[in-house]
């Protein structure tokens, strides 16, 4: 079958596509090929470059280099509208239709059938009914779109896109908020469209769905193409290896062995969980110990971190700090107990872009001290200067707005923000994401140093090599549950991969 | 002028005799705009008093400045089968449908204080309003007479830009002083009909006109602005009413207080008694079948220090201004 497809001219052909944001290479010489009538899954962890690739193809972003060919002809869409005119349509996770208009109006918005300038409602409804019947969808097209389930809204969005003469349909995480039944309905629609010769690019985090529906898989990692494979001939374990990577990078060194008997419990979570977010787990964090959280995107890593830090409120279980039961209802509670948290989304959840490096560094300490005990300007300067030097933040100017710093230096400032509070536990969510190689190594070195100084660390990373390099214990997550723990000599990349891949039969979507 | 005198005279003369005989049965619905200003509140109070004087059962509906409330009120009056409807319209258009309903129910409608769009002329019995151009004229005439042949630089505090009352009061005043070469408006700004703005604008006038020494008179489109202007003059060390003449319009109680203190010279009354003439016209119409004129103009009476301002103040202060 592969041979047969290869023989035809591809529907969409992307070659050598590159895109940088500042010093960060979001896409590096990426190739991507979509054939007519195939369902093609685009996979990768956060920051792999999936959404950048989609944005470039649909004209939202410009490209630095590379070509995009549609049916052999080179295209250069500069907006979503231009891409749509070429026949490339996108349906996002959050359906971008108007819920307060009727289904028919949504289908024909901007191109309503008119007579003498007057919209012909009856005609529009007839056409809409007929159109949706083609998708095996028999609903009242006069009713407001918002009254229908998200799955139906997705099908309506797809119907609209395809009716606008789309030949390439891009579905960006359409199943994230659907239940099993709705996913089936969506998949029926996708198969019907593929049978009609439409090429579908499908982005999802749910590997089961990938194996359910896709013909072919393209994997990206860190902005690079890792490989393009036929789904049927790609074992799950190998796919996960492709997604998470296993070649050792320069950041890897020998694992630092700790005398575990010396480490005392720092924070203990028992049967801790939150419905719809993460299944109850037991977690024991010790001084001078690094616990790594490994799992695919959407497996519950960030959810665990947020629960530990009080950013989300647990609805089951108990938490204890140094053996004493505590309440963690808000980040304030957590900060009071000496916790710190560097979130994954640095820009939206971490830095305060217009404030200076100094202000960003002292923020958590100041919040901990309270409004009435301000740090004097001298104290602030001193703290900022100390950490700028200690962490080698560049440029070494504490009065520069943090938004002007590179990603790696922003991350160091966020680390400094927490180190200034002299925490007992630090939660780091993807601390090396989007950071250039040099800063990457420094941050790994820092994590080790902090650990040596008796800090308890909980680190999330998609970089398995990293996790292997610094973790004393690795908790493996799958489908929003903690499914296993690896310790000491048991920690290596292949064991982690095996734990992640084991038994993928539980449909992830049913949890939502 | 003469007609109005006669009407007023008729009202005064006839009320005590006719009222007890006929008006006992009369029920009148009054759709009032709301309580947007002190004058409006006074109008409501006076209307109640005038109705009580004639033993008319007056039902007042407060529309809170909304036309839809007024339309609702009129419909409910029609449903109740009142003998007549008084309407103080909040806007001038959009009344045709509801007034037709009243007409079909054979209930006469009398407009108070404000007129409506000409297309509805046959939909109401009469309109009792003041002539704001005339008010400006009375003010201007008084100033011309008082100043005599002296040169006189006038500063003017206008009402809200775009308000028809402001435009009319300016027009009437301009017409009156145009006949006198020695009267000249040197500065004119809007004080938005409020005390605060009246004071602020007057402060700047005083500074711009050499500390107020070259100002001979202030004309304000309403008394509230004048009350503010009087404060500004006093704070600048000037003596309002003596160094600078004042004339304004409305005749609210506070201007009489200033007059008693010798700080204001003249005001032209916008009478809050619109209901009185309306009730008289209504009585005549009901009893004798006399169709009133389409427009009953209320008197624009001039008050000066010679008119016993203390008495005027006492009679007005309880009206709700």
């Amino acid at each position, binding site marked *: 079958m592969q041979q047969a497809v290869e023989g035809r001219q591809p529907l969409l052909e992307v070659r050598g596509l590159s895109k940088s944001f500042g010093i960060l290479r979001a896409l590096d010489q990426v190739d991507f090929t979509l054939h007519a009538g195939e369902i093609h899954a685009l996979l990768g962890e956060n920051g792999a470059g999936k959404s950048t690739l989609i944005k470039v193809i649909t004209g939202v972003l410009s490209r630095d280099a590379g070509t995009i060919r549609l049916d052999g002809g080179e295209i250069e869409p500069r907006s979503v509208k231009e891409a749509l005119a070429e026949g490339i349509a996108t349906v996002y996770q959050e359906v971008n239709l108007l819920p307060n208009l009727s289904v028919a109006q949504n289908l024909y918005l901007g191109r309503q059938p008119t007579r003498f300038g007057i919209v012909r409602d009856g005609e529009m409804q007839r056409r809409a009914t007929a159109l949706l019947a083609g998708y095996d969808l028999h609903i009242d097209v006069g009713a407001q779109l918002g009254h229908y389930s998200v799955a139906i809204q997705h099908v309506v969005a797809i119907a609209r896109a395809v009716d606008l003469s789309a030949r390439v349909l891009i579905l960006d995480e359409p199943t994230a908020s659907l239940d099993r039944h709705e996913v089936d309905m969506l998949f029926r629609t996708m198969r019907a469209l593929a049978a009609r010769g439409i090429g579908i690019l499908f982005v999802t985090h749910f590997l089961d769905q990938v194996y359910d529906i896709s013909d072919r898989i393209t994997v990206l990692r860190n902005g690079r193409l890792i490989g393009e494979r036929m789904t049927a001939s790609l074992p799950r374990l190998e796919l996960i290896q492709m997604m998470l990577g296993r070649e050792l990078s320069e950041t890897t060194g020998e694992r630092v062995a700790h005398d575990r008997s010396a480490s005392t419990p720092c924070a203990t979570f028992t049967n801790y969980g939150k419905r719809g977010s993460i299944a109850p787990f037991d977690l024991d964090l010790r001084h001078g110990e690094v616990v790594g959280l490994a799992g695919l995107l959407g497996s519950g890593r960030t959810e665990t971190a947020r629960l530990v830090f009080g950013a989300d409120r647990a609805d089951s279980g108990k938490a204890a700090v140094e053996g004493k039961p505590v309440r963690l209802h808000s*980040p304030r509670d957590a900060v009071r107990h000496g916790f710190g948290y560097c979130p994954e989304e640095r820009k939206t959840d971490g830095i305060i872009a217009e404030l200076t490096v100094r202000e960003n560094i002292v*923020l958590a300490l100041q*919040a901990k001290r309270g*409004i009435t005990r*301000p740090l004097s300007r001298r104290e602030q300067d001193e703290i900022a200067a100390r950490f700028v030097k200690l962490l080698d933040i560049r440029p070494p100017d504490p009065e520069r707005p943090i938004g002007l710093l590179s990603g790696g230096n922003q991350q160091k400032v966020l680390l400094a923000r927490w180190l200034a509070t002299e925490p007992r536990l630090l939660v780091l969510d993807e601390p090396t994401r989007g950071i250039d190689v040099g800063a990457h190594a420094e941050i790994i070195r820092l994590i080790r140093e902090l650990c040596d100084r008796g800090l308890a660390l909980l680190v999330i990373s998609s970089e398995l090599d990293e996790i292997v390099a610094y973790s004393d214990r690795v908790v493996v997550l799958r489908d929003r549950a903690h499914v296993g723990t690896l310790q000491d000599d048991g920690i290596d990349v292949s064991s982690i991969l095996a734990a992640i891949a084991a038994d993928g039969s539980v449909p992830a979507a049913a949890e939502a | 002028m003469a007609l109005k005198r006669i009407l007023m005279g008729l009202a005064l003369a006839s009320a005590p005799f006719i009222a007890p005989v006929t008006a006992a049965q009369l029920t009148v619905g009054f759709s009032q705009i709301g309580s947007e200003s002190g004058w*409006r509140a006074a109008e409501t109070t006076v209307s109640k008093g005038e109705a009580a004087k004639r033993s008319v059962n007056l039902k007042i509906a407060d529309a809170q400045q909304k036309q839809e409330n007024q339309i609702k009120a009129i419909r409910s009056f029609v449903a109740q089968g009142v003998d007549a409807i008084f309407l103080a319209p909040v806007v001038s258009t959009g009344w045709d449908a509801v007034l037709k309903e009243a007409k079909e129910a054979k209930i006469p409608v009398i407009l108070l204080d404000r007129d409506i769009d000409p297309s509805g002329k046959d939909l109401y019995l009469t309109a009792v309003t003041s002539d704001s151009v005339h008010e400006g004229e009375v003010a201007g005439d008084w100033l011309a007479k008082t100043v005599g042949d002296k040169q006189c630089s006038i500063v003017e505090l206008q009402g809200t830009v775009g308000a028809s009352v402001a435009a009319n009061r300016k027009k009437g005043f301009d017409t009156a002083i145009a006949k006198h070469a020695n009267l000249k408006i040197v500065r004119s700004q809007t004080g938005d009909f409020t005390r605060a703005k009246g*004071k*602020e604008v007057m402060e700047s006038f005083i500074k*711009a006109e050499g500390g107020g020494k070259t100002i001979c008179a202030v004309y304000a489109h309403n008394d509230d602005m004048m009350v503010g202007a009087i404060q500004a003059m006093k704070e600048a060390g000037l003596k309002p009413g003596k160094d600078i003449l004042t004339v304004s319009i409305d005749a609210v109680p*506070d201007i009489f207080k200033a007059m008693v203190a010798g700080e204001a010279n003249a005001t032209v009354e916008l009478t809050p008694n619109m209901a009185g003439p309306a009730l008289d016209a209504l009585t005549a119409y009901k009893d004798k079948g006399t169709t009133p004129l389409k427009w009953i103009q209320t008197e624009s009476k001039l008050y000066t220090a010679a008119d016993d301002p203390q008495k005027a103040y006492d009679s007005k202060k309880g009206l709700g201004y």
Partner: protein
Amino acid sequence: MAFQLPRRGLAQILALIVILLIDRMVSSQFFDLRLQDGRLFGSLIDVFNRGAPVALLALGMVLVIATRGIDLSVGAVMAISGAIAASLADSHAWPVAVAVALGAGLLCGLWNGFLVAVLGIQPIVATLILMVAGRGVAQLITEGRIVTFTSPDLAWFGTGSALGIPAPVLIVAGTLLVTGLVVRGSALGLLIEAAGGNARASELSGVGIRLMIVAVYVWCSLCAALAGVIAAADIMGADANNAGLWLELDAILAVVIGGTSLFGGRFSLILAVCGALIIQAMNTGILLSGYPPEFNLVVKAAVVLVVLLLQSPRLSGLVANFRKARA
């Protein structure tokens, strides 16, 4: 870097000076000062004196806007507090009248803060409620009339003076000082700027945002209540229909002219007051100019546009590029 970004605040102070100079061109006596009844008297004093209510509103508004909020109700709060102060002035001692008026402001602020911080209603909608209802409350207090009073004690707040300086100017200066001390003397300023700049990140850093937001709305309403007392004292009466009408817009404009973004974050108290003075300098200039009042709003809009363009970073970037291109 080929060009120097304009120093923060320079644009506003320059604009104020330029407008004052234009005022001087319009009216030759603009900078003349004399003592009248022991009080400084002149157009320049008018700018400060008449600008006082908006300056007070701006002092509260700037904190609200810094948290990425907005308070549309300040004009209505002015009307309420003015109505209360005027109603009590002749029957009670002035401290009682002022305290009750400010107390009403406090309640208004708590209400706004509750809606925004606890119920999570968008600030523009939450404060719109009080903007509409508040004026009605004020009208209920005054029964739709202008409530006048004669108490010279309360009148001092509007027309009194100390050392020749008008009372409203002193009150603004005092409020500026107190606000500055509270905000910059404690950690509040930093935490407000952090919360306004990025609420999620601040919350994840342990900043207690809720209480802080309630506090800034309370402070904003208190400033508005004080402005209401001044406005009532100035005309020795409370005009519930007109007191503070549309002043919320002037206050927001003052804050924006003062360089604080409506998207929250960095703020400056002094520049907000400076913004209020720019607006008033313009108003006074227009009144002195003798132009027909129909031009007032057009002139005002043009000047505001120029001031905002002056401080637009994009424009200064364009200018710099232009210079570079020529060099």
